[in-house]
């Protein structure tokens, strides 16, 4: 799967994103890392130019509440509603439902195992093969956790 790993907003810590990028590579995926401090507009354009299947967002700053809905909206607006979005970093439990309702399919907080993230991607791949929705547009309410 071609996956864009992005760091939206002003948070300057990307150790986590890099560890995940590396683990996904070792799991056989093609990972494009964007670097730090990308705007929602930049991220949506990168996903478009790369024609990625999935977008992993890592945020630790607490701004997910604003940034994630904006990114999902931009993806839908620009004809990329099929792109699967998953989240990592510090996302408080109370915000999970809201994130899922925006179209996010999985949230991986501290302590998550890379095996689990790979299992999630594997599950998503089989859903795509079976024409079941994983994107931010077409929703049957499925999410990983």
């Amino acid at each position, binding site marked *: 799967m071609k996956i864009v790993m992005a760091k939206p907003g002003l948070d300057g810590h990307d150790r986590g994103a890099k560890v995940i990028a590396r683990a996904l590579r070792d*799991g056989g995926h093609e990972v494009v890392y964007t670097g730090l401090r990308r705007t929602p507009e930049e991220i949506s354009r990168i996903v478009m130019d790369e*024609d990625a299947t999935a977008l992993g967002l890592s945020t630790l700053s607490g701004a997910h509440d604003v940034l994630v809905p904006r990114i999902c909206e931009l993806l839908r607006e620009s004809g990329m509603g099929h792109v699967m979005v998953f989240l990592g970093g510090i996302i408080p439990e109370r915000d999970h439902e809201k994130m899922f309702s925006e179209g996010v399919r999985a949230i991986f907080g501290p302590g998550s195992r890379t095996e689990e993230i790979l299992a999630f991607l594997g599950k998503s791949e089989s859903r795509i093969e079976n024409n079941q929705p994983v994107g931010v547009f077409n929703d049957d309410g499925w999410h990983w956790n």
Partner: protein
Amino acid sequence: MTEKEKLLHSALEGSRRDLSRLLSMIEKGEELSMPEREENPDYMILGITGPPGVGKSTLVGRIISYWKERGKKVAVLAIDPSSPRTGGALLGDRVRMDSANSGEGVFVRSLSTRGNPGGISASLMAMSKLLSCCGWEKIIIETVGSGQSEIKIVAFADKIVLVDGPDRGDIIQAEKAGIIELADLVVVNKSDVPSALKVAENIRSAFSFSNENDSPEVLLVSAERNDGIEEMMELIQSSESPLWRSRIKIRERLLSLWDHRLMSSPKLNQVIDDIETGSISLEDGLDILSG
């Protein structure tokens, strides 16, 4: 109209999304019939290659900015190797190309060597053609390496720049192998590091042993400090390939297309099986594949 023709039509009309989808199809080995690219002196395919860690991506970032400031639309195809063990790839060139992430006039696609069943050079050629048909005037192809195969990859580019850095000297090794003839310009990056000067000297001296007096220029720059970039761009634009270099490039292009034709033949697996069981010879196999 087929789905592909619809996409092509819309990409030619300016849809970035559909252009991007077509690039993926080419990457997967699909053929696409495109209109001839318009003759325009502003159009250029620039190949940038060199060993890992010499600062190619940072340099590409500077080239993007240079062209962007002059109102040009710039597209980049950045190629990174994929792991032979897992097939996975980590494509991180964007991180060092800050200018790549902003603005409508810059298009960057990261590619791994894996997704190209017929050889990467043939798909890069088709991708570049598509991009220029869609109005992307400047196309930069960035590949890692200084070996024969990496330089071959960019043989179809209009201009080829080889990048080296201090404490590497890989280009001198390339000179020994006789593949440096493809380069239109040699750039030694990190000119702020004292040993860069020495590397540039060594390359110039290696060239001076050659009988040809039209060896490529050797230029010192610092991509990090934005030093020497304007001069480099002027040299890239003004350099003209001597006839013998154009002929080598054409030769390499033929070889790439040949590879592509053999590797993308639907009979490939059958031919390999037949050779393995001894029912046909290698020559027979080649005849079948090229027939």
